[in-house]
């Protein structure tokens, strides 16, 4: 193999008349690169890997699934510690957000009518398979716990001979809520593995941080929603959950942005960059505001909670968009692989 690059037409986007080279420059590149652009070759600037075909359904699901997980944990804690208002809204929020999750997941399928094919197999090599199974366990449990909030009303409204049904529902509330909370950490975390287990550069390179970011973002969202919907006297656990989540989220995001090398550009540029910046500002402001004023003022609690929820939305959409952008530019596939080979970490796919 000759080491020298042949002189000739450079198929990099600048030299090649490929249409894609021009299109992808429109995305708001503003930064002055600290290091000069890494040189790389490509086939007319076209992507090497394919971006996922996923629509905004999927980042919406990442947010909703996290919110469902965090809310069911808050609901279980509130149930066990005697905080009825926090328990009620958290159970309802867990059911509503798991409902949104299921809708978005089915809606994004190329063949929604075949959604149940997800339950044909159990595959540890497929995070989507294990995730679907965890949602399958979580959904009904969260549903029973939420519907059981209606048990006292039902008991009053039902004819006497049917009241046993309402009482049964009431009794099942705690076991169902605890069952949902037991699965919740998996529901809120596996999505970080799901996207890391791809060839999409930003997601795969972010494999060290993504499970932590997604788990923390779940805590932030659920805590934020608890602060909005619960009187301040009962919202202490929501505030603390959100604060811990926000701290871990910001730390893990910082580590991701500083450890990804050239691929980190996708977290700073374009729409993804704006979303990630918004996520950091909203998460930090919401956490600080909640801890300082969340106990004293309901208005401050609602504002801080809304910022935290919005911050979690921005995190999920930002990481999603950054991954899509990283797959659409061959630079983020080729350059890190070349660097890995230059470091001696791999001999690549070429042999003689």
């Amino acid at each position: 193999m000759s080491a020298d690059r042949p002189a000739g037409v450079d198929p990099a986007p600048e030299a090649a008349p490929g249409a894609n080279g021009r299109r992808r420059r429109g995305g708001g590149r503003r930064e002055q690169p600290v290091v000069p652009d890494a040189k790389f070759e490509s086939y007319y600037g076209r992507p090497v890997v394919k971006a996922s075909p996923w629509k905004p359904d999927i980042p919406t699901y990442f947010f909703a699934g996290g919110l469902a997980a965090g809310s069911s944990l808050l609901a279980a804690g509130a149930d066990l510690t005697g905080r009825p208002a926090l328990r009620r809204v958290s159970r309802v929020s867990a059911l509503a957000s798991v409902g949104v999750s299921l809708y978005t997941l089915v809606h994004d399928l190329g063949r929604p009518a075949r959604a149940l094919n997800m339950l044909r197999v159990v595959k540890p090599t497929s995070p989507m398979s294990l995730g679907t199974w965890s949602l399958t366990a979580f959904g009904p449990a969260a549903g029973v716990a939420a519907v059981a909030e209606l048990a006292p009303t039902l008991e009053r409204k039902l004819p006497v001979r049917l009241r046993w049904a309402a009482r049964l529902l009431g009794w099942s509330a705690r076991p169902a809520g605890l069952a949902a909370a037991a699965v919740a950490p998996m529901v809120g975390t596996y999505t970080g593995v799901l996207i890391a287990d791809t060839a999409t550069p930003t997601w795969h390179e972010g494999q060290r941080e993504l499970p932590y970011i997604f788990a923390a973002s779940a805590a932030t969202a659920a805590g934020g929603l608890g602060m909005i919907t619960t009187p301040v006297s009962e919202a202490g656990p929501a505030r603390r959950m959100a604060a811990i989540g926000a701290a871990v989220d910001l730390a893990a995001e910082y580590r991701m942005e500083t450890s990804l090398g050239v691929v980190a550009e996708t977290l700073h540029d374009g729409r993804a960059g704006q979303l990630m910046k918004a996520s950091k500002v909203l998460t930090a402001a919401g956490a600080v505001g909640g801890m300082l004023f969340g106990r004293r003022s309901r208005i401050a609690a609602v504002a801080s909670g809304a910022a935290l929820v919005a911050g979690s939305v921005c995190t999920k959409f930002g990481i999603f968009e950054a991954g899509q952008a990283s797959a659409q530019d061959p630079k983020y596939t080729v350059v890190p692989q070349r660097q890995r080979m230059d470091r001696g970490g791999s001999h690549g796919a070429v042999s003689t």
Partner: protein
Amino acid sequence: MKLPFDLPLNQSFEAGPEGPAVDAGWTEPPSRKGFFTDTSICIGCKACEVACKEWNGVPQDGIYELLGSSYDNTGALGASTWRHVAFIEQRKPLGGERTGVAEPEAAAPPVDLGMPSFSRPGESGDGERSEFRWLMSSDVCKHCTDAACLDVCPTGSLFRTEFGTVVVQDDICNGCGYCVPACPYGVIERREGESGVKNVGIAQKCTLCYDRLGAGKTPACAQACPTESIQFGDVDELRERARQRIRKLHEAGVTDARLYGADPDDGVGGAGAFFLLLDEPEVYGLPPDPVVTTRDLPAMWKRAAVAAVGLAATAVAAFIGGRR
């Protein structure tokens, strides 16, 4: 750290020495089948693209688009492109490269094929015409030994055939799209289009003509290739043939020649469909160091377990760490 996840995950997700078919549970399968695509004798006729479309009933995916990339208006592999011929124009002498299946001879002078030049005669001022070569390469699904698309498929639609190839079961795929970003080569894709288009909404890619293989036939693309640039056969034998071809090309002075995907120690455990290239892989749109993403999955699950425990601990701390 000992985690419950250690139990199922200590086993490797990668194929064993018996080959991918045995690893997938086939008992006494036929020998592993694959392609050796020798791009040094590809003439860019696209017979493979046409034969594949015709045999497999692959719908059209854009008829009149001009991509401005030499003679390639196909663009890339995708849901409705299972063979893709790349064209790369370079200022480089042809060397001993010749069309046809004849072996190159070191002493043979370069053959003028009448290909276009970047400069007209005399234009460069020194009386010499600039030199030119055309790289053509027919790309295809690699049918990886360790296939990410198959690993991540949540429905079991993607499966390992008895021939060691990777095939989508059209009647099972629900179009979740997970295999698309998982493939390190950007091969598999979900077919988009109006309802009524064949297999719309589900993942599609080369099957290595599973139906033809079952009948003892050669895949359509290899059958149609007029120069035997696409060679079909047992992977072991094809690898040996490829090594011999490389040796001959190097002896003939074509030092650019190299194999891509033929090494069982590469990031995907070796490709069932591998290539002889005349330049770096990325020039052809191929990743220089593809790695099956599931190689890192056990480590990812362990991190997720730690994060999940952390999330549960956060909830506990939120309730016990304070007054109200």
